[in-house]
């Protein structure tokens, strides 16, 4: 039993990817409900799909928690797939940041899936399998230690998201879905060009190896390498909705069904994660001629993202659009913190990112709960019939809005405070303070306006929806909002963890040593395509580094 547990622990990074993938395969084999939602075989299949999917995400949550516990000690878990030594084989690396992102994904996935079992999963085909494939892509993107592998997992999560996006169907979803797919395919093409340029100039795609080799690329080669890296900033910026590439997000997220939009809240964070890993670390400090490559771009663009996001939120005509624009503003705030390029700011960025993901996901679910009780007006911000549970939904809206706008004592406030503190002594301090505080104030106005229209400015003569939301839907939404409150209660340990994660990220040497082994740093100085007498030693000649599993 002890050895079995030990084995499982050793393979946790891989299992985090395999579990959703295997679950998805099982769900596909089980088959679709075929539109049969009451009685009959289809209904039984749907029930079993729900049970399997929920069990799988709960197990995933447990595994992510174990990985966080393991990473919290500061240990880097390196998993060499097929026991090929890095950088020749593909590695999965779990550091504090990866483990945290895995946990965040699970924390969003569990309540969202629970919410979806309240009925959304029967409005289209294969919802549960696609949901699991999306989780597989997300988890894979967060654990991989290889840039091309990141591309592959990006594609996995995107392909699942293309189908989830049009889940529930309808005219608007197909139209917006087509835009979403085409834009993402163009972004994927740019991703490949960027990856190819990086490979051409460094001869590697392993993050640790890239960090070792990038400083050595000088002269005209460095210009091409930087062009590749900046193309990747376009790609990651597009996923993260960095202005001016953020225009697609509100339409897409507002058109998607509520649980899908809530799950997509974590998808923008994959872009942020990519920027941190590649532009923050590989092209960060000590990168030789490419040092702090994106620093002059990232901060102004992130500040612009905040402004665009909050202005969009003020102008939003529906509650879903409002939440979608607030997503843009919150990603902007996270990227402002990333763009400051200090440990303290990154700690704040990670803390705020975790909180804003949970809040935004909760708000997307809440928006649908409110819309469902307002008759024909749905989520449009105009006077309509009163909702049937004004106190409950109103309080939830108040809690979510206060956290999104950053009111004390909620974690949105704590994150912004950490960010403002970290920006002191930075040359852009004035701009950062103005924008972050202004955005908080304007989001508060936007949310207050929405809240007063939805809950107070009611027309009693219009017949409303009599039924309240089912306890399951309320419970799932409350769970997400409760998680943000928990982030406030446990702010000290969580912010200590994110600060440690930020310090671990910039410690490039320990990362390289853990991934490449002590030999790796010495032997990988040979550049590709140069036929100096010293041909790189065959991998077998170097002592094979210890596999993680042993």
């Amino acid at each position, binding site marked *: 039993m002890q050895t079995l547990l030990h084995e499982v622990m050793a393979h946790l990074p891989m299992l985090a990817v395999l579990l959703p993938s295997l679950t998805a395969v099982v769900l596909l084999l089980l088959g679709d409900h075929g539109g049969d939602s009451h009685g009959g075989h289809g209904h039984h299949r749907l029930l079993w799909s729900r049970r399997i999917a929920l069990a799988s995400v709960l197990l995933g949550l447990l595994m992510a928690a174990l990985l966080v516990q393991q990473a919290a000690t500061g240990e880097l878990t390196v998993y060499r797939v097929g026991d090929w030594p890095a950088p020749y084989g593909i590695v999965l690396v779990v550091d504090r940041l990866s483990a945290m992102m895995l946990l965040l994904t699970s924390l969003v996935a569990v309540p969202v899936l629970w919410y979806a079992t309240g009925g959304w999963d029967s409005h289209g085909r294969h919802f549960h399998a696609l949901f699991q494939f999306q989780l597989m892509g997300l988890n894979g993107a967060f654990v991989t230690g290889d840039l091309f592998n990141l591309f*592959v997992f990006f594609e996995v999560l995107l392909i699942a998201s293309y189908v989830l996006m049009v889940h529930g*169907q309808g*005219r608007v979803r197909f139209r917006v879905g087509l835009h979403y797919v085409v834009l993402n395919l163009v972004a994927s093409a740019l991703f*490949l060009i960027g990856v190819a*340029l990086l*490979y051409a100039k460094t001869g590697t795609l392993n993050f640790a190896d890239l960090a070792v080799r990038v400083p050595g690329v000088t002269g005209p080669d460095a210009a091409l390498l930087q062009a590749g890296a900046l193309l990747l900033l376009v790609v990651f910026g597009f996923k993260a909705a960095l202005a001016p590439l953020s225009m697609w997000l509100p339409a897409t997220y507002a058109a998607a069904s509520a649980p899908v939009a809530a799950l997509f809240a974590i998808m923008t964070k994959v872009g942020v994660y990519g920027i941190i890993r590649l532009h923050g670390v590989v092209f960060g400090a000590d990168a030789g001629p490419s040092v702090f490559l994106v620093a002059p771009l990232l901060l102004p663009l992130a500040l612009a993202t905040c402004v665009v996001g909050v202005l969009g939120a003020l102008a939003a005509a529906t509650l879903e659009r409002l939440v979608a624009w607030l997503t843009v503003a919150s990603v902007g705030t996270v990227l402002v913190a990333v763009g400051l390029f200090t440990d303290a700011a990154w700690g704040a960025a990670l803390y705020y990112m975790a909180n804003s993901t949970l809040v935004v996901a909760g708000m997307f679910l809440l928006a649908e709960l409110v819309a469902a009780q307002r008759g024909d007006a749905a989520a449009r911000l105009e006077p309509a019939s009163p909702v049937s549970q004004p106190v409950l939904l109103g309080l939830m809206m108040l809690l979510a809005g206060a956290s999104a706008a950053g009111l004390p004592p909620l974690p949105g406030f704590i994150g912004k405070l950490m960010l403002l503190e970290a920006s002191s002594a930075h040359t852009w301090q004035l701009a950062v303070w103005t924008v972050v505080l202004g955005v908080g104030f304007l989001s508060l106005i936007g949310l207050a306006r929405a809240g007063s229209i939805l809950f107070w400015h009611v027309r009693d003569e219009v017949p409303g929806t009599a039924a309240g939301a089912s306890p399951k839907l309320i419970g799932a939404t409350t769970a997400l909002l409760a998680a943000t409150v928990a982030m406030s209660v446990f702010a000290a340990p969580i912010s200590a963890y994110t600060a440690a994660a930020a310090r671990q990220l910039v410690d490039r040497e320990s990362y390289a040593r853990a991934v490449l082994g002590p030999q790796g740093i010495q032997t990988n100085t040979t550049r590709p395509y140069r036929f100096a007498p010293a041909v790189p030693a065959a991998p077998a000649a170097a002592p094979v580094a210890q596999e993680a599993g042993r």
Partner: protein
Amino acid sequence: MISMEFLVASGIGFVVACGIYLLLRGRSFTVVLGLSLLGYAVNVFIFAMGRLWSGAPPILEGAGPFADPLPQALVLTAIVIGFATTGFVIELALRSHHENGTDQVDGIEPGEDGEDRDEAERGPGR
């Protein structure tokens, strides 16, 4: 004499230019064609990033020159993914055409404003 590198590079550039032109068109079919062209150009680009070799084995043999096998492996993955996504986007474009009654990417035929749309969508075949 024109080098092979120059030919391949300008060829990729030309295909990318065509792809971008088609991508910016208003009908979903040309957009899909543009995506495919862009995908082809990117695949050749990845391949070319391993440098252009003639007569060199893609396997390390002693100290001799060898063609880099890694971009070839990468390009295979990219081709497979590109093929699948193209298939999907064609299907999606067809569905969008069916639902919206037009293959214009924003769902509105040129010359119609928003008011006429509901009328137009109930057009022939519905």
